């Protein structure tokens, strides 16, 4: 039944957010620490477990797939309720702080993405050949 999939998803999100809040309280932070991240990991493991035992028929999957397909419209709805006026009104200091932080971090992405890969060794091999 489709509701099984949606219920599984809901359970994962609730447990994940609970872990995030407990973790936040434990380290004295006024925020949910990684709640959605934990939810996602739970869902990955739960679906893996069920798939192996053949307990994940198509209707159940559809109960999750619908929500993952509705994701982009949800992001649009989220964009539509940002406080854009405040961002623009913040003046040059706020705009520059935000924009510069974004630009520099963005430019460094390829450097960080190389960490832990064997790319340099592969390059050396190409050169040797």
């Amino acid at each position, binding site marked *: 039944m489709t509701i099984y999939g949606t219920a599984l*998803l809901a359970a994962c*999100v609730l447990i*994940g957010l609970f872990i995030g809040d407990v973790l936040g309280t434990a380290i004295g*932070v*006024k*925020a*949910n*620490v*990684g*709640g*959605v*991240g934990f*939810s*996602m*990991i739970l*869902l*990955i493991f739960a679906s893996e477990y069920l798939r192996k035992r053949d307990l994940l028929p198509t209707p159940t999957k559809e109960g*999750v*797939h619908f*929500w*993952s397909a509705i*994701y*982009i*419209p*949800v*992001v*649009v*709805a*989220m*964009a*539509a*309720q*940002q*406080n*854009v*006026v*405040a961002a623009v*009104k*913040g*003046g040059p*200091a*706020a*705009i520059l*702080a*935000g*924009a*510069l*932080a*974004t630009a*520099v*971090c*963005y430019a*460094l*992405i*390829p450097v*960080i*993405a190389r*960490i*832990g*890969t064997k790319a340099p060794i592969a390059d050396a091999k190409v050169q040797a050949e």
Partner: protein
Amino acid sequence: MEKILVDVLTKNGLLTGFAVIGLTMLVSYWLSSRFTRGKLHGSAIAIMLGLALAYVSGLFTGGQKGVADIPLLTGVGLLGGAMIRDFAITATAFGVNFQEIRKAGLSGVVSLLVGVVLSFVIGAAVAAAFGYTDAVSMATIGAGAVTYIVGPVTGAAIGASSDVIALSIAAGLVKAILVMVASPFFAPRIGLDNPRTAMVFGGMMGTTSGVCGALAAIDPKLVPYGAMTSTFYTGLGCLLGPSVLFLATQALVG
């Protein structure tokens, strides 16, 4: 008649939200294929349209929640609110390959630390350049450059004034919007087309709304990977901002 119609639309807010957002998507995808031949992705246009509507609504209502401040459109607020957002983001993990996440684990963790610290330093430096030279203001605006949640959390913890806190929120909002709108254009240049880079992208930029909006426009398959790391970013920022990073700023500025 008109009153009855408005009543129905407000009473069934979430449904109005579905209809309004559905229409926005339809218009955006039409604009995308008609005028950019699909080059500028429909979802990117939809997000920009959403932000523009939020700006116009903000000007008219004077509120802080974009179109959600218009009584008729409170349902859009519900649809894009924290509950449905977390639900839908988690659902995207359903098709994720766990091996990919394990492989990119180290660079993901490094990107989180570098992303938070670097954003903070740049934000604090810009604050100083604009004359906010005391440690509390520098740290608060620096934290705002991390995300718009870390800014006020840090500011409240170390006793910043409300105008500095407002500035830190604005810095974070600028970041979220810029990540959402600008990253898709530069994605090919930084090789943002695979799960590993998407995870690093999430860790470096951190703003969950910005990251997920951008990845949705680049390649929806990458959304869960970026979301995975970015969801730890705000927590890490709230942890480091009022503590280590503030103390370091104080030691530096005196």
